[in-house]
């Protein structure tokens, strides 16, 4: 009797996990194929340089002396009109040389207005809450300190705000340290699929893109309308995306607004990064799902997509539950009475179907990016998959444990930087053009006149 019950429960769990994961597989296929066929392109590239609001750029910093100089120099070199630009490096209780570097730049460029924080709750969201009070821009853009924006990125990020429905914008991050470790190589594939395929396809299909908190921005009026940053959230970016969505504001994605980032090179750093994302994201799921279902501004399709997005980390424990149930059935002789072949076909079919779905997204992204060599790394993504599944399950276990007992949970955690260059040398192949001359308004549209006539 007990054995029969175990068999029945195992089957129910397997079927449920297959249904949930199958639904995600369909979604991945849909997005992958849509992107491959370049359907419904939505972009504002043709308006780049014509949308020039007053912009405030925030750079949250905590002990960033290795990287602060690069990001500040890159912003100085950007082709945005300095009259319309304000850069606020948010120095959050740094104990290294960050303050000196920031002050040195502020002394040279009047549009750099540092905010030095010496007390208060730590973490990026809390620092942003305070710094936002000083901002005068109509659009707030954000870059993490280890990011190096290209010269045109500010204009590209402001272009989507031509649309009054756009509350936030997200650019694309591109890992530069792809060959530093196998993990960074695999993460570059993950990022490539996440941005080039998924974000772009979702935006093209009319779903809201996800604001990632860096290489992105938000309309000041929209931010005020939703009550500002949520200092309690570990992922203030996801929180903001859904707060905006519930009020009718969309997030745009700009694939061409690319920016180099540094991805984790070892699994310990990656686990901690993932743990923060999982906790913050799942917190948002709990905070927003009832409102999402009731939202008057969203269609049924948009609500479904938003829920899929918020619940994505729950797929990891669902996979594990499916595995455990399969093992249980494997070791119970009575369970073998079930016709094996059709069931095995079903499971194998599902596995192929769902794995191919995510691989399709990676393949499409590498194809569009022209980085086909990197696509050959795909089989090794299995390592990433197993590591991610473990880390996500562990983070969810901690999250629900803390939630159940009402304890605080993890605090904000800054991802470890590994860049060794402290002398202000730009990194990446196409280094920022140091000391680039500021251009006149006319020079913003026409190339400098180097005609043959001189």
């Amino acid at each position: 009797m007990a054995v029969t019950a175990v068999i029945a429960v195992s089957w129910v769990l397997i079927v449920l996990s297959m249904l949930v994961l199958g639904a995600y597989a369909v979604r991945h296929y849909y997005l992958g194929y849509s992107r491959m066929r370049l359907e419904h392109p939505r972009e504002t590239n043709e308006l780049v340089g014509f949308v020039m609001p007053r912009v405030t750029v925030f750079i949250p910093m905590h002990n960033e002396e290795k990287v602060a100089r690069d990001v500040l120099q890159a912003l100085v070199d950007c082709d945005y009109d300095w009259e319309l630009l304000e850069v606020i490096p948010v120095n959050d209780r740094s104990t290294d040389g960050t303050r000196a570097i920031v002050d040195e730049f502020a002394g040279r460029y009047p549009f750099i207005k540092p905010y030095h924080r010496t007390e208060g709750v730590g973490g990026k969201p809390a620092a942003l809450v305070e710094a936002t009070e000083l901002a005068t821009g109509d659009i707030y853009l954000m870059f993490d300190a280890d990011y190096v924006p290209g010269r045109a990125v500010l204009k590209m990020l402001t272009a989507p705000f031509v649309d009054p429905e756009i509350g936030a914008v997200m650019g694309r991050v591109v890992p530069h340290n792809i060959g530093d470790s196998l993990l960074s190589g695999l993460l570059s594939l993950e990022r490539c699929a996440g941005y080039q395929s998924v974000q772009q396809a979702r935006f093209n299909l009319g779903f809201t893109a996800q604001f990632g908190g860096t290489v992105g921005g938000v309309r000041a009026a929209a931010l005020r309308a939703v009550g500002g940053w949520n200092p309690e959230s570990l992922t203030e970016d996801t929180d903001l995306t859904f707060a905006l969505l519930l009020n009718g504001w969309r997030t745009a994605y700009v694939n061409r607004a690319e920016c180099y980032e540094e991805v984790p090179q070892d699994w310990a750093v990656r686990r901690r990064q993932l743990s923060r994302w999982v906790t913050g994201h799942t917190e948002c799921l709990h905070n927003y799902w009832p409102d999402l279902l009731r939202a008057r501004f969203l269609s049924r399709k948009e609500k479904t997509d938003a829920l899929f997005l918020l619940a994505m980390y729950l797929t990891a424990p669902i996979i594990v539950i499916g595995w455990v149930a399969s093992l249980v059935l494997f070791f119970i002789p009575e369970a073998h009475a079930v016709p094996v072949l059709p069931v095995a076909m079903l499971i194998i079919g599902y596995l192929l179907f769902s794995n191919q779905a995510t691989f399709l997204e990676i393949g499409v992204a590498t194809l569009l990016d022209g980085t086909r060599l990197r696509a050959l790394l795909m089989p090794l993504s299995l390592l990433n998959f197993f590591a991610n599944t473990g880390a996500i399950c562990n983070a969810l276990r901690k999250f629900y444990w803390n939630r159940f007992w009402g304890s605080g949970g993890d605090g904000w955690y800054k991802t470890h930087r590994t860049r060794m260059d402290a002398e202000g040398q730009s990194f990446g192949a196409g280094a920022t053009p140091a000391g680039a001359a500021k251009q006149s308004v006319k020079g913003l549209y026409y190339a400098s006149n180097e005609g043959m006539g001189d």
Partner: protein
Amino acid sequence: MAFLIFSAIFLAIFYLHFSLAHRAWLAIRGKQSSELDMGYVRLEDYFGQSFRRKLKHWLATLPAATNSTAGLRVYDHGKERIYVAPTVQYPGGRVEKEILVTEGAFACGPNCDFRNELMVKGDGDIGEGTSLQAIAADGALQLGEGVTVRRWVDAAGKLTIGADTAIHSRATSRTAIEFLPGAYAQSLFAPEIVTEGRNDDSIELSAGRGALVQVPHRAGETARAANGFDPAKLFSMGGGTYFYEGNLDVTAPLHLRAPLVVRGHFSCGKESLLESDVKAHGNITIGPASVVKGNLVADGNLVLKPDVYFQSLLQAGGEMRLSFGVRGLREKLPVAAHATRALTLESNIVINGKVSSAHRVIAISTPMAWLQSKKARA
């Protein structure tokens, strides 16, 4: 036996699978990504300027000219040749396969074929029916009727694009572009873009003076449904932005005072004043003689009726039509209009900035222009 064969095949596939991945990893190990061009800056006349720079570099670094006769210099650049001449005047029907640089004026008769780029340091005059690869001119440039340009056109002086001319990429000028009926291009950019039959006398701005519908209504006023506007469908999104559920077809002059998102089609009556941005999930139609100060974004088609004056940016997910007498101008920055499908420019249009389309920008002749020009002739 079957098991052994199965195992061997499985192991072979398994090995191949991971050995390829391993080799890929060895190829990228220790390297940094170099896929981004960090110095990229978007410039509207990029093609023309890039060609000028390349040409200047080639002429400065290539070995001395050969076969030089009567002022003509010939440079060999790989499989290509560069001809440099003082001034050139070709008769009709000439076919030229090489890159041609003229240090003075250039003119050609009808039906010539230039299969490589042309650089003209003086004024250029291209005969009707001629086919070009691309052309850059430091002076004024006139493309005759029915010219085909396979790539781009860039001129420092005034650029005249003749009737029925086809430009398959961008056309830019630092002075002005005259775009005649039947001509098309992918994008036009100049301080002034003009279509046929320009008549500035007819411009008379009276928009907003007699506005019957205020959106949002003023504080203290009681709003009621009238003239196609139903206040019950208007909601605040916060941040001073409003959202209208369904179609908003205002039949009277409208005064829009805050950003508005319409989840349907949007249209407004003549002489409306739109001081803020409008986004419509459907089509947008702006009534005649209206003034548009905010940006207009339509997921569908966008139409500006005659004599609309816009000081902003226009974007359409479908087609766009700028009717007779439309003017686009704003302070400090140029205006821009972009459509995913065809963008049609009627007669008597003046735009200071850019018009572009993922499909094509086309100029058409409208009866109004014909009447206007007839009246002027009389």
